[in-house]
């Protein structure tokens, strides 16, 4: 139990949770930019589970929500590349 507590304290102190380093996003233009911006606040499996059912407009709305509601420090200049990566690699491509 003591080992568990020590380990938990250690992991919580770290910005990343154990295990999330194993998440591999799909190859594609903008992947590094997406990884760098999104994992400031959360692990990248948030992207994986929310796929593939959001079209470009809905991915844009999602990223906008992250900025406006959750205060994500994303440079507006990077928005188009981020949305393009997400909708190309994790989007619905027009299928509802």
């Amino acid at each position: 139990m003591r080992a568990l507590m020590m380990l938990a304290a250690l992991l919580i102190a770290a910005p990343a949770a154990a295990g999330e380093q194993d998440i591999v996003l799909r190859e594609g233009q903008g992947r590094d930019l997406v990884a760098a911006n999104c994992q400031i606040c959360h692990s990248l499996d948030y992207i994986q589970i929310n796929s593939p059912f959001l079209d470009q407009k809905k991915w844009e709305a999602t990223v906008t929500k992250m900025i406006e509601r959750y205060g994500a420090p994303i440079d507006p200049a990077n928005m188009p590349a981020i949305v393009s990566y997400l909708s190309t690699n994790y989007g619905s491509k027009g299928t509802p």
Partner: protein
Amino acid sequence: MLSRRQLLRSARDGTLVFGSAALGSYLGLPRSSWAEAMAPVTPGVSAGTEASARLVALPGKVPLIKLTYRPPNFETPLKYFNDVLTPNDAFFVRFHLAVIPEVAVATWKLSVKGDAVTSAAEYTLDELKTGFEQVEIVAVNQCSGNRRGLARPHVPGIQWGYGAMGNARWKGVRLKDVLDKAGVKDDAVEVGFDGADHALIGQTPDFVKSIPIWRALDENTLLAWDMNGEPLPHWNGFPLRLVVPGWTGTYWIKLLTSIEVRSKPLNEFWMTSAYRLPKGIFPVVRGFTSQATDINTPITEIVTNSLITNLVDGDKVAAGRSLEVKGIAWDGGFGIDTVEASVDAGQSWRPAALGEDLGRFSFRPWSYQFVPEAGTHVVMVKATNRLGQSQPREAIPNPAGYHHNPVQTISIVAA
């Protein structure tokens, strides 16, 4: 034993994962919990969820269905719902914000304050335990977005299947008793709650919630430190959490640190923008009027629901032999009245036998027996509570995919 440096390095290299052999060995966990496996996700969740969900054990937990690592969102596999009380180490984990401190009881304090109390107070855990009458209640803790992953069309959010819920025996003190001691003024409208968890960056709204004063003074609303006879697990709110039986989990603030009795509604993101439903689409006996607008209202009462726990869609069973279909039913705390099963795709319904009654806020077990002939059988189940609230045939669409409670339908094959 691995050193701290080795642990950090292997974490960075990606060789350390919950569920890995190295960590399993380090923690002395049984081998069965090491192997990373594809998770038994609920049929109908998104393809991306099916592909990325894993069975992963957080420290102190059995392997649960990992949807997201950080903040941690882990759901309970179906098999654990065959027990009416959900084991602590299998109880689901849901956090909005990534920083979840290990609380030391020696320094932890609960503050009771606000412009609508006459005397603010602070309590240690021991002072709470000895200063007020201790009470117990069995109650379902269900995430508002449980089964969101089954919404059609899919809606963004944590893509939960069946398991963002659990049923436990909570022990603590009545919030009412603590508030009475502080002296609630006549102009109190809401009570706000904050926990020790917080965001990684300051711009993210802190997770704070409020409930109406009448709900805070309800004798069933507790400040609980004990769950199924043990201290709350860290992941479920140690050392103290709010328990609001009948209402969805969003109000059950974990790692509770402050209680604020307010003369004005709490005007924060998690109240005014999140966890809201279009007005009038779900039944509500007593609403949250101080937070309602003309168009929407906070989610509150859990809707009537049921779940088959021993069979899943596509299961093969023996033809010509008695088959038990079993499961659980629950509602917003009015109590389950009947559970009915159909084994002919809804053409005819028969009552299921209700099991042990642990109170109106608890899961209610049920079972139904029939002898399937060879072939495919469409099995359905629906619950009705004592107010006559039942389950719709189709889910009621809403933007965030809350309150998913359509009649469950599975096909089984007897041979």
